[in-house]
């Protein structure tokens, strides 16, 4: 019971904080919407997408990039959670969390669940707006995509936790965008199927193949059409578990996460 109360408290706090930060909510929606409504509009003429699973017919480019943009929302949300962990640590509220009488791994899981919950809100809001703009998605997809979003959210949230346990200062966070977010996003099938990448460069194709974010996007893509992509599911689960273990290790007091301040 105390464990569940803590979970409720942490998730509730993150959602409240998210709803209070209107700019963050807006930013989380505007970013993928610009890609969807502007980038895709310009690109649809230049890029024809052949029929690839799970699609059974030719689809407009806007429809193709929806799963990638859902992944992007979760990627940015994971980084945002990570940023807020570093901020919390600098501002002291991390101390409050870590001194509560619960195992540290559980507190991290709660943080992770809270981040995933916030990302789900963002994803559904995005899907709603996309639908209003005429993007056609299968009706049951709204629900069948949920497990994939949860799993992908856990993987990217765990990545955020690992980063936050290694990044000591808020100022160093800008590098994360260049060295983590952009490579993960562009080396993935979020914006173009990987066969297109293979036509340009075999090396790049293989880099994309091992990118876990790409597997997350494909997992979401299939789930949106009521299908399970088992290889992607396996990859995302495995990477999520490894990252979670690294995060727990990173926040172990024996390894001295808080070793930064004397006095």
């Amino acid at each position, binding site marked *: *019971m*105390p*464990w569940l*109360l*803590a979970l*409720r*408290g*942490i998730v*509730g*706090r993150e959602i*409240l*904080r998210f709803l*209070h*930060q209107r700019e963050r909510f807006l930013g989380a929606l505007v970013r993928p919407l610009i890609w969807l409504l502007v980038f895709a509009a310009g690109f649809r003429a230049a890029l024809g997408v052949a029929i690839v699973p799970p699609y059974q017919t030719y689809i407009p480019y806007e429809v193709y990039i929806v799963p990638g943009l859902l992944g992007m929302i979760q990627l940015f949300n994971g980084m945002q959670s990570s940023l807020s962990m570093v901020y919390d640590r600098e*501002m*002291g*509220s991390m*101390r*409050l*969390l*870590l*001194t*509560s*009488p*619960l*195992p540290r791994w559980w507190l991290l899981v709660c943080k992770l669940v809270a981040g995933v919950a916030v990302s789900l809100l963002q994803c559904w809001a995005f899907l709603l707006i996309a639908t209003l703009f005429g993007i056609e998605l299968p009706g049951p997809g709204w629900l069948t995509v949920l497990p994939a979003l949860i799993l992908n959210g856990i993987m990217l949230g765990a990545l955020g936790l690992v980063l936050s346990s290694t990044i000591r200062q808020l100022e160093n966070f800008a590098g994360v965008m260049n060295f983590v977010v952009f490579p993960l996003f562009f080396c993935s099938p979020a914006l173009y199927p990987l066969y297109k990448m293979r036509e340009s460069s075999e090396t790049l194709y293989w880099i994309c193949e091992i990118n876990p974010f790409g597997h997350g996007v494909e997992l979401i893509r299939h789930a949106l059409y009521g299908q399970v992509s088992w290889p992607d599911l396996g990859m995302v689960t495995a990477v999520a578990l490894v990252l979670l273990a690294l995060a727990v290790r990173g926040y172990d*007091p*024996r390894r*001295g*996460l*808080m*070793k930064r*301040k*004397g*006095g």
Partner: protein
Amino acid sequence: MTGLSFRYGERVALDEVSLSAEAGRFTALLGPNGAGKSTLFSLLTRLLISRQGQIRIAGHDLERQPRAALAALGVVFQDATLDLDLTVAQNLRYFSRLHGLPPRQAEQRAEEELTRLGLWERRNEKVRALNGGHRRRVEIARALLHRPAVLILDEPTVGLDPPTRRLLVDHIHQLCATTGMAVLWATHLIDEVDPISDRVVILHRGRIRAAGDVPVVLAAAHSDSLADAFRHFTPESPPAQEAC
């Protein structure tokens, strides 16, 4: 705590520190900046772990039974740890859940503690709207929600005006007397110590220089004022501040 030592790399922050805070008493941990007070608090709250020495909180070994030990501990950190965009009540509710208090009990205790500190009427205001003194009071109310056996406060009056400082010091002294709670209050402000009832521990450069009731510490320093005794035990450090 007994025989506690801690290093940041080569720098020794704490060296064989042993001290205790008795139930029902206010123990003032006096030390100039850099004495090792914050390191001591990080060890007490398990944000840092030392391989040398032992910490027991209300009978629980912090290393072997961390959850039971932390459950008995109330903490007011030196840095503010409130969510500015949440209301007073929401901040307290978050903390109660972290400590596993059932919702009804949590609400009841929040009302008791906030009323005691004169903030119940402001429970629905965002923390951002409160001044520094009120924020500190909220943090003290929060630290007491789970009825800890030991309350530790790391320089809680830094940056507060004298009347607010007095109010908080008096409040904690009163709590000690009425609830039987052990209090460890870190400060470098001598006038926060009650010379009649308090115990004093002087920490300097990571080592305990003096400990005991105020008369004992004065006698050890051959002095008749705590400020002189503090200077005696902490040479080469800026003089401690008295009442302002």
